[in-house]
């Protein structure tokens, strides 16, 4: 597969939360607003890109038997860097995301890409893979956050956009709203997929 293909697969065919249904913990927990989803997505993208690059470079050095331990050390280091810089420069976002930033370490998307892709591929495809999957994850979280914020609070990125007599459906910004919303999006994605398949015969 070409480098461009490695990048674009993360945006639709293998878009993490909706197609692979991976990384659901942050997907459900932090998407109460578009901005939070975007922050979480970007933090994850940084970690994913960093770990993919390092693991791809080290793929011939790391012995097979201790590879998981080595991957986790690499991933955890990037997560701590993200956490420290977020605390230093984006404190309000750091407060909102809270425990879910350190939990990026156990996000199975990242270890999954390291194990399934970066450890078997050269640097350039690994960068494309990390960026694509990360961007797909960011877009998904931002979209989910935007939908929940719009229906649940009537705002988008913190700005009020709905008409005046709009009654916010506050369940959407609470935990059950995350499940409902994710379910509907999954349904829509599958429906679009089925339509495409039928058209192709």
């Amino acid at each position, binding site marked *: 597969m070409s480098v461009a293909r490695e990048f674009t697969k993360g945006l639709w065919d293998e878009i993490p939360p909706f197609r692979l249904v991976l990384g659901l913990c942050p997907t459900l927990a932090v998407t109460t607003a578009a901005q939070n989803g975007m922050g979480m997505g970007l933090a994850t993208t940084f970690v994913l890109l960093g770990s993919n690059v390092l693991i791809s470079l080290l793929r011939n050095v790391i*012995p097979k038997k201790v590879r998981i331990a*080595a991957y986790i050390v*690499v991933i955890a280091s990037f997560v701590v*860097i993200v956490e*420290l810089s977020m*605390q230093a420069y984006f404190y309000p976002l750091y407060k909102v995301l809270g425990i879910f930033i350190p939990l990026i370490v156990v996000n199975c998307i990242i270890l999954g890409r390291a194990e399934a892709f970066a450890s078997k591929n050269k640097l350039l495809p690994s960068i494309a893979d990390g960026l694509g999957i990360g961007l797909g994850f960011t877009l998904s979280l931002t979209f989910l956050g935007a939908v929940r914020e719009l229906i649940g609070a009537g705002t988008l990125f913190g700005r009020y956009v709905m008409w005046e007599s709009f009654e916010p459906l506050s369940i959407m910004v609470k935990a059950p709203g995350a499940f409902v919303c994710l379910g509907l999006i999954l349904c829509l994605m599958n429906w679009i997929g089925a339509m495409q398949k039928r058209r192709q015969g």
Partner: protein
Amino acid sequence: MRDLIKMVVVLTVICACSALVLSFANQATREQREYQVLKYVKEPSIKAVLTGYDNDPIKDRVTLKMGTDKKGKPIRKNIFPAKKGGKVIALAYGSAATGYHGLIEVMVGIDINGKITGVSIMTHTETPGLGARVVEPAFTGQFKGLVLSDALKVKKDGGKIDSVSGATFSSRGVVTAVRQALESFSKIKKEVIS
């Protein structure tokens, strides 16, 4: 055997590199992180107790060593000076005393003449609806303009401060914290201005 040694060496090197990078990142962001925590945790109370300044009291903060704790380590205290045209016009700093239930931490603003400019409760664990009402401006507003020679006690103890009804202990805690802050003012002022 060779495999074993390679595994140990590779893992050790990766962990060592990671530790090196992380300690560097920790150093590089420390100052900025401390500033952010103070800004978001303390700034609202500082703004509530100081007025008419044109500097950033958090950026200009002075850290003083005030006595020692039980283990003999020096206690560090952040003093936030309010400046106007480069001259210190007031100081704000935290103080704490026991209320009805646990510590009550207050931020006290005191102008250069030793007069209280404002009092704001930062953290407390008082009873909701009763002792917790000490955070209301109706109570904290009473301290404004008082000096050390004023009777800084609740009315029940022969002082000037109306306690929140049904919450004498909580009110006493706040008054004690404010009085302690005023008592240490002359010492702190000398250190900060010199």
